[in-house]
């Protein structure tokens, strides 16, 4: 299916580059041939990524390799641009989750929570939303929804209620929860890795409270919208209340080992700045400590659960963007953006917030953030002294924007795919009607937050 949103975004990107080219041409600053080729490779790659005709990993890697083959960036330089902190963090967390999921812990938590609210579907919608958000704050969003969706189908079938309101709530909660921490969503992982000041605690201090405020607003509205569908009989509630969640724990020894590794890892994230270690070191320490505890029997299974396609997608993107950095295109982009906003921090922040949100609603936020990070860094060199509101605007916009449409984030696509396969299709239009206004409301809240906290 042709991704019209993505095509429009590519067109806008082309128009932006074109405007930038003319702007610098008028000032007698011309781009080198290498820079023009780099933009060409970047735009073609981007267009293929957004049209989703070929797997995004193949395209990103092909684009990155083209940058090297065409001599725009040397192999050594390209390797230096690959952010191994991002890759290590993702790999480490994927290993920990793969092993922990084997224990039945996530099913236990969901059933326990459903029983705590006495099997009331409306309250279950709220608690599953909060659990998804909390899970996404510490785990990858896709992993979280993959853990939540089966248990959601199970609970909704027991209560004989429509699973779609629960699935939509979980999509939205996963994207909001992911916004709240450094490790919650790939854009935040990239930001935390690229900017030393954006530590795990900095994310907690700046984004967690606002993310959970937005979460409660969103879940509250969703509960109101779906309230009439969320009714069941006393008999079905009683059947749910009779479930024995403790029996869901399939391997208690493995559970203890997983909880030890998870606790050390999360503690490590809180302390990584004090300990002077990077977040990837924390995640990989947790992962390999767990593998040490479990033994090599889990090694192959854990490694097979690592999403290597995502890891290589990142590698391709880092090299692709390195072509724009090395040829000076990113500096020119930053210069042009500063010209557009007059270098004013407030208007630049709000512009980044809204452009990131709208762009992320239609295209993958990872390549978008990969391009924006060096651009914002360059803005710092062009005279914008306070970059902090710009970074938080980028994070909030890129992460929450994913809620705008069904194709806005990987978690959305995964849940919609699973739901359709199980006979509960979530159509693009049905999701858009609910999610786009919620996304706009979230970004309005963020605008007020950014303005009040950083700009006055």
């Amino acid at each position: 299916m042709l991704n019209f949103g993505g095509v429009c975004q590519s067109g806008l990107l082309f128009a932006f580059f074109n405007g930038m080219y003319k702007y610098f041409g008028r000032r007698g600053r011309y781009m080198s041939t290498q820079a023009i080729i780099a933009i060409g490779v970047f735009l073609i790659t981007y267009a293929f990524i957004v049209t989703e005709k070929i797997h995004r990993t193949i395209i990103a890697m092909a684009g990155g390799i083209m940058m090297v083959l065409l001599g725009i960036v040397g192999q050594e330089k390209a390797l230096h641009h690959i952010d191994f902190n991002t890759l290590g963090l993702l790999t480490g967390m994927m290993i920990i989750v793969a092993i922990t999921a084997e224990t039945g812990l996530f099913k236990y938590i969901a059933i326990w929570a459903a029983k705590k609210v006495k099997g009331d579907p409306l309250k279950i919608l709220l608690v599953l939303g909060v659990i998804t958000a909390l899970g996404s704050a510490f785990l990858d969003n896709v992993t979280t929804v993959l853990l939540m969706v089966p248990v959601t189908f199970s609970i909704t079938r027991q209560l004989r209620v429509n699973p779609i309101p629960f699935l939509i709530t979980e999509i939205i909660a996963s994207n909001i929860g992911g916004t709240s921490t450094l490790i919650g969503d790939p854009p935040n992982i990239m930001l935390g890795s690229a900017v030393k000041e954006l530590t795990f605690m900095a994310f907690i201090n700046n984004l967690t409270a606002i993310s959970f405020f937005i979460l409660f607003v969103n879940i509250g509205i969703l509960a109101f919208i779906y309230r009439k569908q969320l009714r069941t009989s006393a008999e079905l509630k009683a059947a749910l209340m009779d479930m024995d969640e403790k029996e869901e724990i399939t391997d208690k020894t493995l559970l203890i080992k997983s909880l030890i590794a998870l606790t050390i890892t999360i503690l490590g994230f809180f302390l990584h700045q004090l300990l002077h270690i990077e977040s990837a070191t924390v995640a990989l320490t947790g992962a390999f400590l767990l593998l040490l505890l479990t033994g090599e029997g889990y090694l192959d299974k854990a490694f097979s659960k690592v999403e290597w396609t995502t890891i290589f997608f990142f590698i391709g993107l880092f090299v692709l963007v390195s072509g724009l950095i090395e040829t000076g295109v990113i500096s020119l982009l930053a210069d042009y953006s500063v010209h557009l906003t007059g270098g004013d921090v407030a208007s630049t922040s709000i512009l980044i917030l809204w452009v990131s949100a709208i762009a992320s609603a239609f295209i993958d936020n990872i390549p978008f953030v990969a391009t924006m990070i060096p651009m914002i860094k360059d803005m710092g060199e062009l005279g914008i002294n306070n970059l902090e509101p710009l970074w938080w605007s980028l994070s909030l916009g890129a992460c929450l924007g994913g809620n705008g449409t069904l194709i806005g984030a990987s978690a959305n696509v995964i849940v919609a795919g699973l739901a359709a396969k199980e006979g509960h299709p979530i159509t693009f239009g049905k999701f858009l009607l609910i999610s786009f206004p919620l996304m706009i409301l979230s970004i309005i809240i963020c605008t007020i937050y950014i303005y009040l906290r950083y700009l006055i």
Partner: protein
Amino acid sequence: MMKAAYKYDEELLELRETANEEDIEFSITLLNSELKKRMIKVREFFEENKVLTDIHYYIHPNNRYQVIVRKDFYNELIIQLFRQQLLKEITWT
């Protein structure tokens, strides 16, 4: 389609089957806790495929299992119960 009939050892388990509109519900009570491992294996079989709504598996106290199976996975479920020797015999008539 042929209808399946099965037999089980009444000294080992109690089994009740109820047909709903879209699925079939089993209530299985194991009279011997040693059989729990076999029920886990039945569950694992369905968890390994990529279908999320083929069976719903609920564990209740006193070794009682409520299994809701989609009609298109009914035969697969009874075959797996048979494979784990929770059923003694299956015939299709």
